[in-house]
């Protein structure tokens, strides 16, 4: 048979109402340059749209960006939406202007990693890579 040719597939999304997606685009390009296949979904996405797209695209991880301060509501909402579409195994990573005191709440809500403007890109790339690898171990088929 043909050789396995798997690539890490991730989805980058920007939930919420603010219209800035510089951060999200930057991460998308960074991951592409690191060899990822990045599905980019643009600004102002609802948690339901993000979850549905992640399932259809069969991504191994989701990266969310939020600058509006609504991360406490929006990031967990995506985790919840994934549960509703029977895909709780897809890890969610989040980045943006997020104060440290929110980290614990977000982690408890199921956010796998949190990045802030100060996080070095190597660390972000490694986190996505690890999240993908961990996902392959967890999911059932293939």
């Amino acid at each position: 048979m043909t050789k396995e040719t798997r690539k890490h597939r991730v989805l980058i999304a920007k939930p919420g109402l603010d219209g800035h997606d510089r951060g999200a685009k930057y991460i998308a390009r960074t991951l592409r340059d690191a060899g990822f296949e990045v599905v980019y979904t643009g600004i102002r996405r609802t948690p339901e749209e993000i979850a549905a797209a992640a399932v259809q695209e069969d991504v191994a991880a989701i990266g969310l960006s939020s600058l509006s301060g609504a991360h406490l509501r929006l990031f967990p909402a995506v985790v919840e939406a994934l549960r509703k579409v029977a895909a709780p195994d897809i890890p969610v990573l989040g980045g943006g202007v997020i104060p440290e005191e929110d980290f614990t709440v977000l982690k408890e809500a199921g956010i796998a990693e949190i990045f802030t403007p100060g996080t070095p890109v190597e660390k972000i790339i490694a986190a996505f890579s690890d999240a993908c690898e961990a996902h392959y171990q967890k999911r059932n088929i293939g």
Partner: protein
Amino acid sequence: MTSIAELIAGIKNGEPRAIGRAISIVEDGGVHGHSILAALDVERIEAATVVGLTGPPGAGKSTLTNQLIAHYRSQGKRIGIIAIDPSSPISGGALLGDRIRMMAHAPDQHVVVRSMATRGRLGGLCAAAGAAVRVMAGSGCNIVIIETVGVGQSEMDIVRLADITALVLAPGLGDDIQAMKAGLLEVADILVVNKADCPGAESLAMDLDGVVRERQKAPDNLIPKVCMTVASEGKGIGELAEEIARLDAACRASARHLLRRRQSQHLEILDWAMEMLRPRLLELISSETDDPVSDPRVKAMEILKKIN
């Protein structure tokens, strides 16, 4: 979903997770790819209409696709989209952004969108895209649209997977028509002038009309219609969908449909065979060739004899 049997049942029931997983398994060359593809509903695949949308970057293919989705959904049809973008030859990564324009349909269970990167496959792209078409059709999609940027040979091959191919152009994208004449213009069944709200649309349509009339001289060529659309406002979509349906019906009524399907099947078989052969060939090349001055062509013949 814990077994291949469940995955296959999931595809038949149109479950998004099963469809998404199945396409990845096949695209990645996973061990279960074969059993998944072999179990697909052949009647559904035969009944589905595969539409190729191709054209230069920025012509409005994704915006048009989004409008076609809305149109077909209003008719109660289930629709699949495969949006292909190039992989970076340097990093091997890809930024897949076509879906941005279709996101409003994401939660709709009867719209399946899959972004696919070319992965620098010399062959194999047709095989992977063709398999994705079949998984979607097997899940009950009545229409499957393949969106691809109309440059390069691999994209030309993708076009041949479609029952109906529409070439999407727009004014102000440079005068590529002359260059395209030789390639895509010849294989297109429908010519779409999108951005009909922009200056230059009328003269682009006239230019295309000229090319079409020239082509009319060739015997037994169907004459492609020029459709004007404003995808961003949803104008001209009904007419385009009507033309797609009309051509599809005409092809199915004649031998053309079967001929096309057979051609695309041959293409995909060749693609799969090359993919399967490649590792064995590479192995033979490196194990059999230690003499750097031997002639490559002669060597290739020798190696092929070994495979027989």
